């Protein structure tokens, strides 16, 4: 039976929701602005001021972006990297975070320092690049997955969540004679859905948005990820000269029909919408009371 809400509670709710809605409007505005730009003609886009509704909807920018088979190949490559990266990263992060979360791990301080040190002191681009080449990973999908697979940040966040799990849970499993691996799989992970979801989200978004490592390690255009393909479309379009690569004046006009601003807006939408839509799937793992069930049961 729910207690009846007092007046104070009601007021709290109203104020809370009002503020949240107001803030949300500010959050969503820039996105709408970009979306409107992506659907505008270059001239309409250049007229300054607020953009809430497009004057006239044209799809030129989207056509230019989506008609390119390279874009679709880019999507494929990105999905491969994201999926592969997610699997590898989760395995590494979980298997790294769990031992570190055990308070009686031998030399725990040392191992934590071992991990944290690398957040601040890095060799830099050149040695990493040479290493990847020397291992033979150049120009392969692994170059985009392996080097970036383990982030100390993710590791430590996950470690802290594991540390916050009531010790009784774990002890119960060990008393039953389980190995750490069993304890991890049957006790810790089921109860850690929120952090697994959060770290997954971070990994997926980071892999989805990554472009620099593709740029330096991959030379085969068939393996370019989406972000690289889109960047090239934008850069290729900012030609200073009056001349177009095609020499055909009509093609030149086409080029002008999608000027960098509208084109860039369209590529942002194309690159970002898919990843934003991932969130609802992750959401269901932020479920309350997951832990409670396991203690009582």
């Amino acid at each position, binding site marked *: 039976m729910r207690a009846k809400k007092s007046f104070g509670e009601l007021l709290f709710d109203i104020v809370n929701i009002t*503020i949240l809605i107001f803030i949300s409007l500010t959050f969503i505005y*820039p996105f709408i602005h970009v979306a409107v730009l992506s659907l505008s003609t270059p001239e309409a886009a250049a007229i300054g001021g607020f953009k809430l509704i497009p004057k006239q909807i044209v799809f030129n920018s989207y056509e230019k972006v989506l008609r390119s088979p390279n874009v679709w190949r880019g999507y494929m490559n990105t999905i491969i990297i994201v999926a592969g990266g997610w699997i590898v990263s989760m395995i590494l992060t979980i298997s790294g975070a769990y031992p*570190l979360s055990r308070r009686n791990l031998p030399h725990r301080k040392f191992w934590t320092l071992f991990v944290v040190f690398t957040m601040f002191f890095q060799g830099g681009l050149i040695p990493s690049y040479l290493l990847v080449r020397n291992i033979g990973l150049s120009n392969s999908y692994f170059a985009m997955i392996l080097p970036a697979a383990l982030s100390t940040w993710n590791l430590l966040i996950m470690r*802290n969540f594991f*540390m916050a799990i009531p010790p009784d849970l774990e002890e119960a499993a060990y008393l039953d004679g389980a190995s750490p691996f069993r304890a991890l799989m049957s006790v810790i992970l089921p109860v850690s859905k*929120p952090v697994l979801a959060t770290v997954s989200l971070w990994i997926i978004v980071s892999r989805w948005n990554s472009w620099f490592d593709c740029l330096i390690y991959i030379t085969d255009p068939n393996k370019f990820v989406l972000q690289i393909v889109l960047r090239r479309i934008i850069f290729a379009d900012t030609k200073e000269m009056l001349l177009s690569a095609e020499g055909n004046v009509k093609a030149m006009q086409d080029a002008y029909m999608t000027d960098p601003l509208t084109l860039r807006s369209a590529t942002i939408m194309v690159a970002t919408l898919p990843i934003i839509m991932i969130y609802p799937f992750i959401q269901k793992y932020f479920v309350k009371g997951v832990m409670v069930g396991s203690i009582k049961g």
Partner: protein
Amino acid sequence: MNRLTTSLRKNAKLYWKNRFFFLLFLPAIAHYIIFKYIPIYGVTIAFKDYIIKRGIMGSPWVGLENFRLLFMGDSFMEVVRNTVLISIYQTIIAFPMPIIFAIMLNEVYNSKLKKTIQTISYLPHFLSWVVLAGIFIEVLSPSRGPINMIITSLGFKPIYFLGDPKWFRTTLVGTYIWQGMGWGSIVYLAGLTSIDPSLYEAATVDGAGRFKKIWHITIPGIVPIITIMFIFAMGKIIKDDFDQVLNLYNPAVYSVGDVISTYVYRSGLVNLKYSFAAAADLFKNVIAFVMVVGTNYITRKINDYGLW
């Protein structure tokens, strides 16, 4: 010698006893060694005059010359001051914001509304500063922007947020908070869902109001996360958001807004010295590391959710 062998033997026994844990830990260790520790010799670039054909190891040492070049610029101290001040504002003000936002969202019972607001709140994170700067120039404009329209309708004079040195830092911090609030709240929301609901029920029975519940249950429930996030936030005090500042600043506000990375960036355009940027990076990282270790030492007194 005896002491060494006994301690080695003790350790060997310890590691054998915990062998399964270390087995689990092994892939992570391997990854760190291969991809992070092997290339670490590159740190030395900051102390060398990098000659491409000789490689990093073969390039001559110049000791602290690169650092001297960095520090001798007249504006260097000004730039460090700006970086630190802006970061301090951001840390003090921006750090609690995602937490507050998460708590506020947590109190919304209508799950559809909650989900919608959450998803919307992530959107700014996905837009780069190149795009956001163009939008903010419009929104914050003294002549056309809605913010100033509100300000003038209240009877005040319009504020040139991006062009007035008195307001620029505030603008940087404000827009930074705005961009990161939603995305940054995810991790706290994850923590909030782990809190035992029966605690809340018990509190209601005891007659506790909203604020009391938040103070005594919600916040303590996410202390493990807040602790580690706070330590890292302290580490970021010397770092700056290059993209944000680069796209928003202009010469009128250099005196308050020019930060280490934008300064180095402009120098880079002129002298293209790889070592110079490396020296600036190392400088920032050493300070960051010290901050982190220091903060960790302090938080250790309070709880054990710090680094070590």
